[in-house]
C-alpha cells in the first residue's frame, strides 16, 4: 500500500520512501521510515494531508505514490 491509496482517517506507518532526495528532506521534516502518522485527508486525485504531533503536512499525489505504508491496526492484528 502507498500513502496515495491508504484509507483516510487511519494511523499508518511509513515503511519505505522510494525517492532518495525526498528521503533526506523527510528526515528534516520528521518523517522517516518507521514513523507513524495519521492520514488526515486525501483530496481526490490531489494531495494527501498527514498529521504527526499536531503538525499537518500536505504531500503531492505523485510523491505519495512513492511512499510505502502499512496500517498500524493491521500490524497489531498480525502480531497477536
Amino acid at each position: 500500500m502507498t500513502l496515495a491509496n491508504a484509507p483516510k482517517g487511519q494511523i499508518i506507518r511509513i515503511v519505505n520512501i522510494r525517492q532518495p532526495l525526498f528521503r533526506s528532506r523527510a528526515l528534516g521534516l520528521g518523517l522517516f521510515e518507521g514513523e507513524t502518522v495519521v492520514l488526515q485527508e486525501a483530496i481526490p486525485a490531489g494531495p494527501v494531508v498527514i498529521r504527526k504531533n499536531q503538525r499537518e503536512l500536505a504531500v503531492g499525489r505523485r510523491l505519495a505514490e512513492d511512499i510505502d505504508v502499512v496500517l498500524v491496526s493491521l500490524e497489531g492484528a498480525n502480531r497477536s
Partner: protein
Amino acid sequence: MAACQKSPININPDSGVKKLVLAGNPNVGKSVFFNYLTGLYVDVANYPGTTLDIYTGRYQEWVVYDTPGIYGFSSFNQAEKLICDLILGADLVLNIVNAVTLDRDLFLTRQIIDTGVPVVVALNMGDEAARRGLRIDTAVLSRELGVPVVPAVAVEGKGLKETAAALVQGKPGHPDPAITEQLALWRRQKQFNGTLGAALAAMEDDEIQREKAYYIRRQQVNRVYRAVVTETPVGATIGAKLGCWLLHPAIGLPVLVGVLGLMYWLLGIFVAGDIVDLSKDGLMQGYYEPFIRNLLGPVIAPESVAGRLFFGEYGILTMPFTLLIGLLLPLVLAFYFFLAMLEDVGYLPRMAVLTDRMLKQIGLSGLAVIPFILGFGCVTLATITTRLLPSERERRIAIFLLGLVIPCSAQLGVLTGLLAVLDPALIGLFVVVMLTIFIGVGTIMDRILPGQPADLVLELPPLQWPHLRNVLRKTVVKSMDFLNEAFPLFVGGALVLGSLQVTGLLTRLEVLASPLTVGWLHLPPETARIFIMGMVRRDLGAAALVDMPLASEQAVVALITLTLFVPCFAAAMMIFKERPKKEGLVMWLLIWVIAFSTGGVVAQLLATFESILWTAGLFILFLALLAGIAVFFARLREKGQPVQPMVKG
C-alpha cells in the same frame, strides 16, 4: 566559507561589527524578532515562506540578518546555501523554534549546534503549545542542547526583551557525539582542513554522508523531544477542526468559491461602487479639482500650455491625485486588508492544497496559488514571491501567467467596477476568455517546456484568529508602499500624456494606432491613450477607461486587451530582474502579441456572429486547437530525442 556555494550578497560587513543571524523553520515568527530588534518592518504572515530575501538591520553592536525559513541547510535550494554561508560566518545565531512543532524545528537547531557556532534558542508560541496540551521543560531543553533557551510569545510581544537580554549568554552547544565521530572520520579520509562548520557543510553535501548524518540527527532530536515534552491529550482545538473541514472537498471547495466571491463583492461592488462614488466623484472631482482650478485659474490661464499641463485633463496637479486618492487608494486598502486577514488566519496554504490538482494541469503545484492570489494585490510583489516555488520551470510558468493574466488590486477594483454595470452575459464572456487564456497558455507552456511539474510538499500552519494589530499594520504599510511607488509614475504618466496632448502628438499617435485600435479591436481611436498609460501602469490605463464612453461590447474587448496587456513598468522591471534578460524580453513581447491577438479575435468574433455564446465557444475551440498543436509538437520532439532519466529537484 568555500563549503557552501558562492552567495550573491555581501555577507562580510566591516570588521569589528558582530554578526547576528536569525534562523529557523518556515513560519516560526523570525520576522517578529527581527522587527523588535532592529525597529524595521518586514512582512509577517501565517504561511511558510513570507520572508524570501535576507534583510539586515542594526541592534546595538550587532548587524542582524533576517533569513527565509529553512528546514536544514544542505544544498536543496538557493536559500539553504545562502543561509549556510551566513550561519557559518555568524558570531551568534538566534535560532527561533516553534514550540508546537518542536520535533521538526529541533532538527535545524541540532544542525546549527553541530557547526560549533554560538547559539541562543528562542522557544516561540508557547501559548499555542499549551493549548494543544504540550508542556515543554525549558531547563531540560537548555541542558540537553547546551545553549540558553528563552520562552516567548512573540506576536504578543512576550519574551522579546528577555531574548534580547540573553544574546550575551550565547555559546556553542553540545555537538552530537555520533556526528562528531562521523565527521572526524570523513575529515581524515578527505584530508579536509578548515573550520568545523565548513567541514560539516562539505560533508553533508555528499548524499550518502548526508543521509547518514540526518538519520543520526533525527534519532537525537526524537530523544531530546521525548525528554523535554510532556503531552496531555486535549480535544482538537476549534482551529484544528476548522482546518480539517476546510480541506474536506465537499466543504473546502464551496468555501474557496465563497472567499473569492466575497472578495469580488467587497472590491467590485462595495468599494469600487459605493466608496469610490464618495471619494472620487464626491471628494476629488467635487471639491479637490475645482479647488485647484479656482486657486490657480486667476494666475495661469486654463487654456494656456501651462494651465493644461498643471490642471487640464491630464494635469499633474489633478489627474494623479484624483486617480490615486479618489479611485485607487480605497481599492488598495480594501484588498490588502482582505489579503492580510487571509494570510494571518493561515488560509492560503489550504488553498494551495485544494488547488494543487487543478494547477497541475498547467505544470504548477498548488503552491503557485500563493503568488497568484498575492498577484491580485500587486504583480510586482507576487513576481518576487514565485521564489517559493520549488523549480525554475514552475517559476517560469508562474511569472509569465502573472504578467499576462493576473490583474493587480488597483486594476482589479476598476475592472470589477466596470464589469459590474455590464450585461451578465458579457461578464461571463470576460471570465471565459480570461480563464481560457490562463489554462490554455499554461497548458501549452507545461507541454513545451522540458521537465515535469514539481511535487507539493507543504507544511500547513494551524488556523488562528487574526491578530488585528498585525493585519492593520500590514494593510497600512503595503498601501503606503503602493502610494510611494505609484505616485511618481502617475505624475510622470500625466506629464507624458499632457505633453502629447498639448503638442498635438496624441491625436497623431491615435491616428497611427487606429488600424490596431479601430480596425482590429473595433474600439474608438482614443483608446490608444489607455494603452500608453497602461504601459506606465496598468491600473492607470484601467482608471482612464472609467471615464471613456464605450458600448458594452467595446468595453469588454478593451478590458480583455488591457488586462492581458503588458505588466506595468515596475512589474516589467521585476520580471527582468527575476528572469534572465533574454527570457524576460521574450515574455514581454509575447504578452503584447497575446493581448492584442486575444482582444482582436474576440472583437472580430463578436462582430461576425453578433452572439456572445458563439464568441465564447469559438474562442475556447481556437485555444484548444492551439494547445493541441503544441502537444503534438512536444510529442514529436520527445520521440526524436532519446529518453532522458528524470532528474529531480
